[in-house]
């Protein structure tokens, strides 16, 4: 009998604990009569990250930037919609293994099973292009970041918006920079990674160079997995160009730069994609010296509310300094443009939701279509024509060069555009 009572007591105790757990916590201060209670909704942002595979360095930084934005918005109390509802953001992501097939599978899952309200693209043009199809198919707005190919926006999509300067304008500034310093140079070599983004950039650069009267003495692609650049370097040495342009992503770009140095290639000007602006590029030591790289954004470049006023544009979001400080505090490293790109992708969504005053897709789309503003990342404006809908029309690149400070330590300097330059170009390199 005693045992029966003990069991009964335990059961009652357990039941009361479960019930207590299920009951919502009482508000600290009961709402006073007449005050409208604010409802809070959570908007789910879905994306994939390349936590493994060849793109993991850039992708991790991009995701860091995006997470920082979400945390800042939520910490500040979220966004208030026109009906008084407060929106906070939650993120849902998967590892896409830097693999296109995985991307399509996972974005379908994000759109259908996880019911994400908005999507952010994975890093790299190839993966973002694969994700864009799915976003459009399931009627979800997607801000692409870390993806510069033009072709994604020429497929008639209406819900995909690009944060980056498109590939067609990615390396052309490096050629303009060269022309400004050495108009006599005519021979250039273009050696690029064989993926969609690098090929798009290099093809656009090739066309631009020919139009400007340059002689492209070598135009070749290399496989993404290349670790031995000897055959390409041998060929570059034969064609003896004054400038080498091209490259691809971080891993192959650093390998290429390192082997150009180790094999003693004597060229005057080297501009490579993606890798040089990364802070870790400096680990190459002497091999990094003088290398130029286009960057979507640099902490050195200062866009501010004042510059927005001067340019008669609307300003939105934090300043470069505020973003840089917040990122450093959160991740203990200098933000690269990938990180800034991740942040600005979230911020553009925030801007459009605030403008639209609702989470409804068509209203947010209309707000993005009408956006024309200056942010710490630069000018943001999307093409609204039927042929190029969503293509970034406002933003432009800055070009950095690895130079040395007085102590001989490597540091980045902005060398183009001239109005934003922080140092003279080092030319020629040899």
């Amino acid at each position: 009998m005693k045992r029966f009572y003990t069991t009964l007591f335990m059961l009652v105790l357990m039941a009361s604990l479960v019930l207590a757990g299920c009951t919502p916590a009482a508000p600290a201060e009961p709402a006073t009569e007449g005050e409208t209670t604010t409802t809070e909704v959570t908007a789910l942002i879905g994306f994939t990250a390349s936590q493994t595979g060849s793109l993991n360095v850039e992708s991790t930084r991009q995701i860091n930037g995006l997470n920082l934005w979400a945390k800042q918005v939520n910490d500040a109390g979220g966004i208030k919609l026109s009906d008084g509802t407060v929106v906070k953001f939650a993120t849902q992501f998967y590892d896409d293994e830097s693999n296109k097939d995985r991307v399509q599978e996972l974005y379908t899952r994000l759109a259908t099973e996880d019911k994400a309200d908005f999507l952010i693209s994975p890093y790299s043009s190839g993966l973002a292009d694969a994700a864009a199809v799915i976003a459009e198919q399931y009627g979800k707005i997607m801000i692409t970041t870390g993806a510069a190919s033009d072709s994604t926006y020429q497929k008639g999509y209406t819900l995909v918006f690009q944060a980056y300067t498109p590939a067609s304008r990615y390396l052309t500034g490096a050629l303009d920079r060269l022309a400004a310093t050495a108009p006599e140079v005519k021979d250039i070599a273009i050696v690029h990674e064989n993926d969609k983004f690098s090929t798009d950039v290099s093809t656009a650069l090739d066309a631009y160079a020919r139009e400007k009267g340059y002689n492209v003495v070598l135009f070749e692609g290399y496989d993404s997995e290349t670790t031995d650049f000897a055959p390409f370097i041998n060929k570059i040495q034969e064609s003896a160009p004054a400038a080498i342009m091209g490259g691809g992503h971080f891993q192959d770009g650093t390998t290429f730069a390192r082997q150009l140095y180790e094999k003693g290639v004597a060229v005057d000007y080297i501009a490579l994609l993606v890798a040089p602006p990364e802070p870790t590029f400096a680990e190459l030591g002497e091999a990094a010296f003088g290398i130029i790289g286009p960057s979507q954004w640099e902490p050195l470049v200062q866009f501010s509310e004042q510059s927005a006023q001067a340019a008669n544009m609307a300003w939105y979001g934090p300043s470069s300094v505020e973003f840089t400080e917040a990122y450093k505090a959160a991740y203990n490293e200098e933000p690269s443009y990938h990180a800034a790109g991740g942040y600005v992708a979230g911020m553009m969504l925030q801007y459009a939701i605030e403008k639209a005053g609702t989470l409804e897709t068509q209203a947010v789309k209309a707000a993005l279509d009408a956006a024309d503003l200056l942010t710490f990342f630069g000018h943001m404006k999307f093409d609204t024509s039927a042929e190029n809908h969503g293509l970034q029309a406002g933003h432009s690149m800055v070009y950095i060069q690895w130079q040395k400070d007085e102590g001989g330590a490597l540091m980045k300097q902005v060398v183009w555009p001239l109005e934003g330059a922080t140092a003279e170009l080092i030319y020629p390199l040899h």
Partner: protein
Amino acid sequence: MAEIALTTRRKTRISGFRIVQIIVALLTIAFITWRFVGVLQSGIYGTDTWLRFIISGVIIGGVYSMIAIGYTLVYGILFMINFAHGEVMMLGAFSGYFVLEALRSWIVDPVNEVTFLNAYPIPAILLTFLVGMLTSMIIGVMLERIAYRPLRGAPRLVPLISAIGASIFFQNLAQLLFGPVRRIYANPTILDRANGIRLIVNEKTVVIQYTGIFTVIVSILMLVGLYLLVQRTRLGRAMRAVAQDKPTASLMGIDVDGVISRTFMISGILAGAAGVLWGIHNGIIYHYVGFIPGIKAFTAAVLGGIGNIPGAMLGGYFLGIVENLGPAILGIDFQLKDVIAFSILVLVLIFRPTGILGEVLSEEKV
């Protein structure tokens, strides 16, 4: 006697297939010659560039031949392609990398900040090779014990699939353990990749990197050592006996399993050394670094005649040179160099399946 005469006559008769083979071969040769003459006449490449192509080819060929030997040794004895061999090389390269990193951070002279790596470069390099070879050796032996020995009696396709599985497993394991980032081999100053012999050819500088010379010397020494081991030692004789006929070798008192194990040991040692050489010369390693060289070395082994040790050495050097010279000779883009390497594999399999030096066929296989 009559029978022999009949066989001879049968052999001299040329079949239709043979005629097709000859025509295709002639067309291929004509095409290559036509392209080559075109390239030479257009003068796209100067003497200095041809020399650079050959130098790069010989260096990479040295690495290929060391890996190719691993394929050939295992094939010679077990008649199986050890597709995980490239990964055995990659893991050797990684362990060498960690040794170099440790020696680089070990400061022996705090005043001048001299590291062990630069203070004692020769012991440092020897230690790197030793650890790299030991790691690959252990992995090679374990691979045989776990993935291949239980399948010894199974049809030939079964261990092949197991090998492919092991290859993917090791790639993923390395990615998990060491991350996906490419690692840079820290060479001592005497093997700085930016230094080398500078030749003036055609009024241009052709640099032969010291690491390249080192790679070729080490690979030749290892290959000669291996050849002597197989030809002159008791173990070598036992290996050859097991390759020819396992049951008889066993009856003669040879421990067949032991010999197979030692074969994997030797091929692992060579792969480990090749991995370290790859790191020292190319400077970059990551989890996928063994795969493509592994497949290329397999091509080299087939090219030289699989199961044939001098053939694998020759095949490795031949493939390295062809890969570097091929696109230039044909006047095509260098991104097609792998196409050339694998086209050679296909052509060899069609025209001379026994390879350049001929496959060593054992009784069992025949």
